[in-house]
């Protein structure tokens, strides 16, 4: 747990708030923390290297997920361990991880597939610079770099193929330089110069894309400039009367929450990537937060957006809460995936930090019952801040991450619980599944709400399974991305993908069919071991739900594992679409899912989007080629 000294009431609330993040989001290096700042550019030097600002690659992995100091590994005794100090799991021993890992994937700790230790900078093509652009940029004083590490770091997101190549030491087309605008006006200048000198701009926020959105189009002949928004990270003002905050779009999720917490507020927007993803990125991909049931998704949260396009700056003239002024221009910006311009400033709704928060969990005898319960909860519109349902495979996976128990007593209690559920209640350990819950609000209301939800769950055979299981479920969300790196050390590759689907019986059928398709495709493509193919329902809506799939397999014996992976994911997506699922709930389209856009929104719809692009950016300055 992050330790925060006691003190004023406000601090107490802030501490509470931090428990929300389960203490795993503490960020090192206080000197890097942005603060609430005056609304002017150049608010003091933040540079470490001369003229080049913060280099995230110093604290983050260059070829994997997250912080460099946090990772899973198997120690000499073959026990799983998680390093670092940032997460609840950090420094703990995970005795069942090895068995689960070997059992599930048929992997073996003797068979390693290590990554290249460091980037071989000579393998990276030298930057192709647009000299005139560089000259003029220099005169504006906006920092930039064409250092290889800076460029490579911004050349990828976190798709499997991207990380796999990096681990192999292979780097494709990279941005030729990186610029760090410090404020809205800097962006205006950069975009003007880019237009003038015909340079391709690719906006870069947190770099957590999983849709190949950050990949530089290999066919691009112009100089590519990565526009890194990380220095635009101030909260410009907070309006307590209207409960809004005006924030620069480069701010990272966890910083935004922490800074708002200091003033007693929060946005409540917590996508799973919030440790690293940026506000601008959320807007550009139509992000969804874990607690959307209370706070809404990003489109519900934004009140005002400012975006710089080649055509000029687009924004609304007022902050009215709703307008009937033709199609909402925000909806051209939300989900535009960096194809139209750079989001520079956003006004967001904020809420006072909730007084009380409680985790919970429910065990169901099987997935069907669980889904039926979630459907009922959605029907009664009484979903807690978050409600998620893991299938059996994920439940078992969650168990593999249980730390070593500290006393015989706990282990005895665990045994007793297990006995009660499997023997006394007759749940089949190979079918049961778990819903994790997070309640937020007034203490009293939370308790009432909790009772209501547990009562509904009971009707579907659900048994309350304690706070701890719930909390562990949410922690899993944050560490699962680290686990992929562990897998890749031992010939296991995998990825997650998501969809949204109407309730009906689609949720169940879609999950079954997609999982089955994955298993079959793997077999057909020559994968030697049965894959892990598992899903969970992560969001509920009135008319449907968001479903998240995890898919991983042991690739020993395959000559081109990434290609096999991509074929299987492709087949899985086709299956999703055939079963009534959407192309994406919140990951976005990027370049990975472009081929299905026409089918998804009709060719007329695609034409509409294209004509917007043609008007705003006729020369394709924002040339990442996502979406369309």
């Amino acid at each position: 747990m992050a330790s925060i000294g006691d003190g004023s009431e406000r601090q107490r609330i802030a501490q509470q708030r931090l428990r929300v993040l389960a203490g795993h989001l503490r960020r090192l290096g206080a000197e890097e923390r942005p603060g609430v700042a005056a609304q002017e550019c150049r608010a003091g030097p933040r540079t470490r290297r001369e003229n080049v600002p913060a280099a995230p690659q110093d604290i983050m992995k260059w070829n994997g997920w997250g912080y460099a100091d946090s990772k899973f590994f198997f120690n000499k005794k073959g026990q799983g361990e998680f390093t670092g100090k940032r997460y609840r799991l950090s420094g703990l021993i995970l005795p069942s991880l090895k068995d689960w890992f070997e059992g599930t994937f048929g992997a073996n700790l003797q068979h390693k597939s290590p990554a290249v230790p460091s980037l071989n900078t000579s393998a990276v093509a030298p930057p192709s610079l647009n000299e005139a652009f560089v000259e003029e940029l220099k005169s504006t004083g906006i920092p930039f770099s064409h250092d290889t590490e800076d460029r490579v770091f911004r050349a990828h997101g976190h798709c499997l193929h991207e990380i796999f190549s990096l681990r192999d030491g292979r780097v494709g087309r990279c941005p030729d330089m990186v610029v760090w605008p410090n404020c809205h006006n800097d962006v205006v200048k950069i975009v003007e110069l880019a237009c003038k000198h015909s340079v391709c701009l690719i906006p870069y926020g947190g770099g957590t894309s999983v849709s190949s959105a950050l990949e530089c189009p290999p066919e691009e002949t112009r100089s590519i400039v990565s526009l890194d928004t990380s220095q635009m990270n101030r909260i410009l003002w907070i309006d307590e009367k209207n409960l809004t905050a005006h924030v620069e779009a480069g701010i990272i999720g966890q910083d935004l929450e922490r800074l708002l917490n200091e003033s007693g507020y929060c946005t409540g927007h917590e996508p799973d990537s919030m440790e690293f993803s940026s506000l601008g990125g959320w807007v550009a991909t139509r992000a969804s937060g874990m607690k959307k049931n209370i706070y809404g998704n990003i489109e519900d949260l934004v009140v005002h957006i400012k975006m710089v396009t080649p055509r000029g700056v687009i924004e609304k003239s007022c902050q009215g809460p709703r307008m009937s002024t033709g199609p909402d221009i925000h909806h051209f910006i939300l989900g535009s995936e960096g194809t139209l311009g750079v989001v520079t400033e956003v006004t967001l709704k904020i809420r006072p930090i909730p007084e009380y928060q409680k985790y919970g969990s429910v065990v169901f005898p099987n997935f069907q019952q669980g889904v039926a319960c979630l459907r009922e909860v959605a029907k009664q519109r009484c979903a807690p801040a978050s409600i998620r349902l893991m299938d059996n495979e994920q439940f078992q996976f969650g168990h593999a991450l249980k730390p070593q128990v500290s006393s015989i007593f706990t282990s005895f209690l665990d045994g007793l619980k297990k006995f009660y559920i499997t023997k006394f209640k007759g749940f089949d350990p190979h079918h049961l599944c778990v819903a994790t819950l997070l309640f937020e609000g007034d203490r009293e209301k939370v308790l009432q709400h909790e009772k209501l939800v547990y009562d509904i769950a009971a009707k579907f055979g659900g048994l309350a399974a304690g706070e701890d299981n719930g909390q562990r479920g949410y922690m899993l969300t944050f560490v699962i991305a680290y686990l992929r790196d562990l897998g890749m050390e031992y010939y296991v590759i995998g990825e997650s993908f998501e969809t949204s689907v109407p309730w009906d019986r689609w949720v169940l059928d879609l999950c079954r069919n997609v999982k089955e398709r994955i298993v079959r495709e793997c077999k057909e493509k020559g994968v030697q071991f049965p894959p892990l193919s598992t899903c969970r329902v992560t969001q509920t809506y009135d008319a449907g739900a968001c479903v998240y799939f995890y898919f991983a397999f042991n690739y020993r014996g395959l000559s081109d594992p990434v290609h096999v992976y991509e074929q299987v994911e492709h087949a899985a997506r086709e299956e999703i679409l055939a079963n009534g699922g959407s192309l994406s709930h919140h990951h976005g389209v990027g370049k990975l899912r472009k081929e299905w856009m026409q089918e998804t929104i009709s060719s007329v719809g695609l034409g509409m989007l294209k004509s917007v692009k043609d008007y705003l950016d006729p020369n394709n300055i924002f040339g990442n080629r996502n979406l369309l």
Partner: protein
Amino acid sequence: MASKALYSHRDPVLKKRDDFEDILEERRNSSDLRYAFKCYTPVLYRGLTPCKAATLKSMVLQSEQLLHVINQVSAESGESTDVVKDEAAAILEEMAHRLQLRTIRFFAYTLSKAFKALYRSVCVNEEGIQRLQQAMQEHPVVLLPSHRSYMDFLMMSYILYTYDLSLPVIAAGMDFLGMKFVGEMLRMSGAFFIRRSFGGDQLYWAVFSEYVKTMLRKGYAPIEFFLEGTRSRTCKSLTPKLGLLNIVMEPFFKGEVFDVNLVPVSMSYERVLEESLYARELLGVPKPKESTSGLLKARKILSEDYGSMHVYFSPPVSVRSLAQGRINRSQFNLTPRHVAQKPSEETQAFVNDVAYRIVRLQQENMVVKPWVLVATLLLQSVEGMELTELMEQTSWLRDLARMFGAFLDWPDHTPCSMVVSSSISLHRNLACVSGSRISLVVEGPQGPETPEEALFNRAVSVLSCASYRNQVLHVFLRPALLAMALSNANSSRKEDIYSCFDFLRNVFSDEFILSPGASVQDFDEACHLLVKCGAVELLHQDVVMAESGRTVLSFLTLLLEPFLQGYQVVCRYLREEATENLTEKQFIPAVRSFAVKLHLSGSLKCYEVLSSDLQKNALNALIRLNVVRRVRTNEQVLFKVNKAAVNSVEDTLGGRIPTQKSILARL
């Protein structure tokens, strides 16, 4: 897994087929009683939660799909929903099966006795059984047997019981319910009953389709029905019916199940129980109504020898892989699942193709007995022939059939003469040897008979014999159409011959199983086979008869001659005698008496034109060719005949005028 191409029969000879095991052998050596009470523990569908037949019914009645239709019907008719619900419950009550093991065991015992009395052997391909068992665990399975006899579904259930497989639920016609006691016995052994026609009855359709789909989705039991819809009286495969096939595929289209496996089953009889009944039926003697007493009277058949029978389970066909690239399943995503959607044209075409594919698979794995070849030859010389000549020709035909890919059951290391004479003796009711000649047996009353009676009796034996010849038609059909096109076409240019072939194929597409839209493939296949047997040569743009091809080509032309003549007679009738007000009911008797008249006057020698099956098919073909129009008036259906057009079809069939060249572009 099935390949993507729906038509992949380029060289049927290369097909590898499984070996057979006789399941009666064990029955003859061990106790039937013990067999009936054996421990029966079939492997089940892995997604199955077992439930009782009664639970199944209540699931259907409470299904959203059915409730939706009930509300609709109630809104339209003004009746209260409770009344409509009761109606639905009554329909379901009448329809639903009550499968129970007790009855199965009873049947296992009695059928063992019966089968041993009737058949020398019942041969099953055990590899097919193994594949079926595998498929049953993984996916809902639909069993699609061919339908030649009442024995078919009894035999199917018997075999599945023998091999410890899940017993099927079987779609059966309502007529069986007319049989006291037996109907209910069948119900308890897994039959469910559907009305023969319920065209406009929305509620009936909803109950029926939901009942079937519920069983399929649950994987409750394999579903069995006959694609051909009814027993084929002619032993030719019938044009498949699509209703039930549509229903069983829908759960896959809508994503309710991952896949559905279709298993074609070919059931071939050396002697069909109903053989002469069928011939009489085709000649207009009404089919005896199914009744228990009729069944008891039929006991005497137990004393006869029906030879052996073969049951071949083809590899399961995955609907998912067939639909790959043909059906865009997301089209089903925009309406709630409980709202029934009329299948799109794309879907209908797909289902139709699948149906044809399945029937062709059934045909391919039908076992052809030596007698079938003998009957084929006998029919080409109705007046009888020398035994030695028959032996020679049979042996020749055997080789030709093999070359064309027929699944022949010809005993190894036995001289041809032995094989032929033993099959003649099995079918002594149809053919007899007197001295050195063999001829058809014509049963007649003792004493004098009228010319009509004599004709009728002769027609019965010809049609009975034809029902055996028909079993090999699928093997020779395409080359025979080509042979006929060769003799009809007025040049040897490939496109002329193709257009002739295409015309014949089109005319006969109700008569034989000819997949729609596969004309070019069929033509290629026919050319390939005829070239292979040396009957024709392909020269640049020409198809030419080879020197040595005369025998093969004349055999093939003669094979289809009865059909050709039959269709011409129907045309002639329409041209000469049809009135303005020809009704549907009048048609068949009128054509029949027209043909009888021709026969008696000596100007017609062909008997098959007397078959109501041929008459109906010919009419359908003419309707399809827009030569005859169906007009529905208040009371009845009338046929309006375009006499000039009929004349031209008749002439084209006779090769007197060339076919139109409109189809050339497709070559």
